[in-house]
């Protein structure tokens, strides 16, 4: 009894602030704004209107996650295996910066950086790398991927670098003695040992990116676009919470898939 009393405030909090709104949005997705009979009309409408956007969202987020994984391993790998002390120090100091910049600021930053006549192309043309006429705008799906990768890589790299720092150095030294290249040591010896941490970092990034509104809204003006934009649009423009919630449920499902992996992994770790 005492235990229940102790846990009650926390449970109530979760109930009111998470379970209730979550349940409400599920109910609203299957009815007309929380009332009326049950149906799946909101879902058929969501698919009919936004099938391309659904696909686009999955592709963008998955692609970004993959690139983030590669870059994070590269950065953390250099921090662990790099031999040039100055380079490691500079990298260590530099790589975390985007962590402290909010998504909306990143998006605005990229808007001026990646535009057709933006900073990146100006630098490239003035240094003679590309012809002025060849400059093109990256403010489309590529812009979203670049922003996501720029913003989320430090987060994963931070986790991975921590994990790499704590692995047993003797395995690395053994690899060296047998003459393995540093790249080979990274891929064959280091990464397998930190795979769990890497996966957790990537899953968390995936979930975060799936929920970002500002980046697709500000960078990608074209269609298709990401589901968050569609949800905001359904509500602001039509006051249509039903379809917005249906799209929300689809997002839950996408995160649900990776959450399942995450839970399975953490159960395994506990069991081991």
């Amino acid at each position: 009894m005492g235990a229940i009393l102790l846990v009650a405030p926390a449970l109530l909090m979760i109930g009111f602030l998470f379970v209730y709104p979550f349940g409400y949005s599920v109910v609203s997705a299957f009815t007309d704004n929380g009332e009326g009979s049950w149906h799946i009309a909101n879902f058929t409408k969501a698919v009919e209107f936004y099938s391309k956007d659904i696909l686009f969202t999955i592709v963008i987020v998955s692609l970004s996650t993959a690139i983030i994984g590669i870059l994070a391993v590269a950065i953390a790998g250099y921090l662990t295996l790099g031999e040039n002390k100055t380079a490691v120090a500079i990298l260590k100091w530099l790589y975390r910066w985007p962590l402290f910049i909010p998504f909306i600021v990143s998006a605005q930053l990229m808007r001026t950086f990646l535009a057709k006549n933006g900073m990146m192309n100006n630098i490239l043309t003035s240094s003679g790398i590309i012809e002025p006429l060849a400059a093109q705008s990256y403010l489309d799906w590529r812009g979203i991927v670049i922003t996501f990768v720029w913003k989320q890589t430090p987060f994963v790299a931070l986790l991975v670098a921590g994990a790499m720092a704590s692995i047993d150095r003797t395995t690395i030294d053994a690899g060296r003695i047998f003459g393995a290249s540093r790249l080979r040591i990274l891929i064959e010896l280091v990464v397998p040992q930190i795979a769990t941490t890497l996966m957790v970092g990537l899953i968390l990034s995936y979930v975060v990116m799936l929920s970002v509104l500002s980046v697709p809204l500000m960078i990608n003006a074209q269609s298709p676009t990401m589901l968050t934009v569609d949800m905001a649009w359904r509500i602001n423009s039509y006051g249509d919470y039903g379809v917005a919630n249906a799209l929300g449920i689809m997002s839950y499902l996408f995160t649900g898939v990776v959450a399942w992996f995450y839970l399975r992994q953490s159960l395994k770790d506990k069991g081991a």
Partner: protein
Amino acid sequence: MTLKSVLTGAISGAVIAVSMPASAETQLNVITGGSQNMVEYVTDYLGPLFEEKYPGVKVRVTGTGPGDAGSQKILEKLEAQSAAGKEQWDIDVIVAAQKKTGEMKEMGLLADFRGNIETGKMVTRETAENALGVYVGGYVMPMFHSQTAIAYNPALVPNPPESYDELREWVKKYPKQFGYNGIKNGMSGVAFVTGWMYTYAGDAKTLQSGPYDAAKKETWAQAYADLKAFNENVTFTPGNAGTLDMLNRGEIVMGPVWVDMFYSWQGDGRIPPNLKLKLIAPGMPGQPYYYATPAKAANKELAEKFIELATSPAVQAEGIVNRFNWYPGIDADHVKASLDEKVWSKLFTDVTPLELAQKGKPFPIGPYFDDIKEGYEKQVSN
């Protein structure tokens, strides 16, 4: 507000309360939807002007935020006071967006006042009578009109298209040089699409004033198919400001924008001074903001005086046209006399008052508006 000003305010308030009988100061409550600039307009300009003219009156202004959402809050507050059966409501003047003002009128929350004020005769535009399909004649005074038009760079486009037809030909000739923000990234894009539908969906009059017929949207397939083909040759911009940004950087040479935003940016030097505007035929939509007074406002007469002052030619000239680059709420001819020739010519050179009268269209009535946007999503962008 700094602590000091709060303290001074409190002290002077206390002094006034002690030295004057309580009834000497009447408070006029103004509530405004729209962005911060709308609140500041009343606090910094209109309020002091009114207080000067009517000593003993204090204007108090509250802002509820931009878009229909802000005006929805006003509606809900009035509705609550009405439902509670209060005899006197605590809001005297409202400033609200078009769609919600229409809804308030339909719900019986507004007073019929235009006949009582001098400036009521100075407005003849259709938006003074019709708010997206709701008859509001007598119940509203337009505060200003904002209008969309095509901004272009005359150095690169010496002969801009005169109509949607010509624009279609133009984008074929100069692909990717025309930019707009689709429909999810701001109202100027929505306005452009609406103008397209007025041109090609047939029967623009019905779209603008009803009656609504749900079957009508089935006949729009060709208009959407053409728009889809048109979109192949345009650049999409990230928002109203995004279109101006891209014009500024020379990434596009033409695109639909809000006229007031265009001139404000030009005034701030954020876009080149040589850019110009063109209102293409048969027209593009714009929208007014309204002044109105609740059905049971506590200070009904004072509220009418306030709206009368706010819509008087002098205030419209200085406050609306000069400060904000908005088109006046009352007919432009009444405003012209009070305006500096330079300001007048700035606002009306590219788009003449006659053009504005002919090609300045309202947005469609609510249900058609939703149909147009949904049709675009389904048939053009998905």
